[in-house]
């Protein structure tokens, strides 16, 4: 459930006005188009963010999605949004005004923001669920960064000492993020398997019948049994996670969220 925290909004609004006044006094252009030299680069340089370094874009069951985290994840989804607008509306994602100009009745930048927020909320819900399940996980971006840095330090130390590690000698932040997300999901799937009952033989055979329906030369049941069990686990996780999302208490700080603009 997405709610707006009106009390917090009010405080942020007052705070924002004060920050605005200070910035105006300092001669910095806060609203409107940034200088041409700034807009020449990618989406990040076209985007303005509220100046509060500790700003929170949303909370999920009390756990914050920080503005800093939002800034990092935002450009990672740009290709997905480009594909969407190109395929849905025939827009030209290569145009210099692509992000700032609505196309097909939708604003690409607004969609980019929405997708980023949705995925960050999913991250937080997953982390909190993993924590409840007893799976070791960093909750929130600060904790994630600390874990990432510690991981790379450990790797470097071990290599320097002539010891063995496995996987990259240094994880990039995006790769480590994917590693952590994948490992957490894998842990949750195992946890679900241990706490639910695994699929029965009858369920697997029904899934097999459904999957081979209409095939002229279907593979034998035993040949695909493991794949069907895997699919069952995937679907179980997806439905369970959807329920977790629906049950989560989500508060979006509109002041901050709307303050992220071109």
């Amino acid at each position: 459930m997405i709610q707006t925290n009106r009390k917090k909004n009010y405080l942020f609004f007052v705070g924002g006005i004060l920050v605005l006044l200070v910035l105006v006094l300092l001669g910095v252009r806060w609203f409107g188009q940034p200088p041409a030299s700034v807009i020449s680069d990618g989406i990040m340089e076209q985007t303005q963010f509220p100046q509060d370094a500790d700003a929170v874009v949303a909370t999920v069951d009390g756990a914050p999605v920080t503005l800093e985290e939002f800034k990092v994840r935002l450009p990672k989804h740009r290709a997905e949004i480009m594909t969407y607008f190109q395929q849905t509306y025939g827009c030209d994602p290569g145009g210099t005004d692509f992000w700032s100009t609505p196309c097909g009745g939708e604003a690409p930048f607004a969609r980019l923001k929405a997708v980023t927020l949705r995925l960050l909320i999913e991250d937080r819900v997953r982390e909190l669920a993993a924590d409840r399940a007893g799976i070791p996980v960093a909750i929130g971006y600060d904790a994630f960064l600390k874990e990432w840095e510690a991981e790379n330090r450990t790797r470097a130390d071990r290599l320097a000492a002539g010891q063995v590690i496995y996987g990259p000698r240094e994880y990039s932040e995006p790769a480590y993020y994917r590693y952590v997300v994948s490992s957490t999901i894998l842990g949750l799937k195992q946890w679900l398997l241990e706490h639910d009952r695994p699929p029965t033989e009858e369920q697997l055979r029904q899934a097999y019948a459904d999957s081979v329906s209409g095939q002229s030369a279907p593979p034998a049941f035993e040949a695909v049994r493991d794949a069907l069990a895997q699919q069952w686990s995937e679907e179980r996780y997806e439905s369970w996670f959807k329920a977790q999302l629906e049950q989560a208490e989500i508060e979006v700080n509109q002041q901050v969220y709307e303050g992220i603009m071109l």
Partner: protein
Amino acid sequence: MKRRSKAILPLVILVSLLLTSLVSGAVSPIARAAGTTYYVDSVLGNDSSAGTSEASAWKTLTKVNTMSFTPGDRILLKAGSVWSDQYLDLKGSGAEGSPIVVDQYGSGSKPLIHFGNTSVNGEGFGVRLRNVSYWEINNLEITSGQQPTDMRRHGVLVVGEGADAGSFRHIHIKNLSIHDIFGTDRRTGGINFHARGTNTALESTWDGILIENNTIINVADTGIQTMTDAFSNNAWTHKSDAFKNVVIRGNYVEKIHRDGILVRAGVSPLIEYNTTNAIGNACDVNTGVVSYLDHIAVVAAQWAYYTTGAVFQYNEAFDTRKLEGDGQPWDFDVQVKGSVYQYNYSHNNQGGTLLVMNDTDENIFRYNISQNDLDANGAFHLTSGGGNLYIYNNIIYRSGTQNRALTHASNTGMAYYKNNIFYNGASGQYTNSPRMTYDHNSFYGLNSSVANDPYKIVGDPKFVSPNTATGRATADGYKLLPTSPLIDAGVMVAANGGKDFFGNPLYNGAPDIGAFEYQGTIPQPVTIFSDDFEDNDFSDWTVSGGSWNLTTDGSLALSQNTASGEAIAYTGNASWDDYTYSARIKLLTASGNVGLLFRYMDNSNYYTLRLNDSGDKLELYKKSGGAMTLVSSAGYAVTPGQWAAMKVTVSGNVITGYVDGVQLLQWTDASPLPAGKIGIRMHTSAARMDDVKVVQ
């Protein structure tokens, strides 16, 4: 192509050489061409500009594609730039010491090439290096997004084909982020090298490939691969050596439709520090848009094909899927010879741990850790037609419900299992076959007695903290505790790679079993009693029943000569609790029995490990409160009149029995006799004893 003024260029080269000589003290033997740096800015650039400065940057990749570059040139793409429906089709070649470099300039997100549904001759790519050498591609983001059109697509395609095919050198691909690219057959995917053509076409080869620190996510079909059409062209000669000096290092590969990292036709490729995750039918894709993905069967995570001398090390692989077969992290595939998997870590792979295909030979699998890989094909799957395979010092840890075979053999070559730990948490079986040998392996859990290993150890390996390798960089939980029975209990392996999974040198004393060579000092056993009877005195032994004397049998030995009733001789200290007791024993009576007594308290309370010629068995009895109970036994061919070296170790509540250096049984007593003396016992039998020793 606009160039610097010809009048200035020699001056620039001269100054460069002078500076180089000043810095290094000598001119490099290979003069690096100065080259030209070109800039490309998707927002502020202009294709009519010179392209040779940030202020005069080109705008499009189409412009770049019109150029033929020369040694030392650099093409720099502005960070944060985005090119939609464009791609890089790079032309020209560098030279040794003067490669042509593609990289980013400025700070921010990597330059993004979104090549969408574009194609050249029916295939799409973000970057193509066709019939060129000496290129280095760095720091790009490449995607096509989900496209409805069915065609081959590649993040990076390095291809040799047509009239300009031939021998190519030095292609480096580093720090790319490649994602969401979907192609229609197995020659597509993230980073593809392909010697392409028909039987009558020119053949291509590469020497000097580096694929390093790339992230490849959500791609069909394969993450990283080398491929030659020599496999289908009889006239082509490079079926096993099309790719030389290949290094694939530090890549993260996830959500792949077919295989993760696949080296075909390689000579001594090095594949290290990579992680693969979610391999096989694992793309996150809207099938309403991308409806053409191949039906996938039999994938593996990181493997080789028609390759010699491959080294796979320090890699991690998890969540590889079994699709109608296979699904292993590691695979010596067809025609892979003289190759090694070492120091790798695998977990949660559906197909098991290692696949070995036909026409393989002299491959080594050592010092790897498999933590709860699943076992759709058993832990090791050696198909028909494989050659010799050496499997040593690995840890196969299973604490789940896996119950298929932990070991396997082919029907042709030999599989040699040495010094491995098989931790069998469920009911996995062990294979015995004339095509395999076991030597000094640890088998823990059910079915431990099944494997034909004359030097097996079946006790708890005593890991520090198994199943806790979640710290990503390490698997320290698989080190051995100082009390592990596996320390110094293995057999020497020559040319063993020189270090264990944790980087420790081999060996520290005698070899350990498992992937960890214990580094501490092991307390040496102390002999607390010994008697070889050469002093012609057995007055310190107490006898009960029988007729005893010392007799010469090679040397002086204690002999009991009456084959009737119970005869016992004992000695030592009633407070001895944990110890190893050994002696040479000779049974003199056919169908008789004789055994070691230990933790002997009195004639009604003791253990005895005895040879029984009746039934050819080694038997462990416990006598408690006067009641004698057979608690464990194992087959052993007893030969009256022949000496046998018997040994028993009693440690807490665990009793382990050996004959002639081979562990034959182990039993755990829920309420053990706490301590006692040692001795010899027989019933209705005559027997001799010599060289008695007790160590703690």
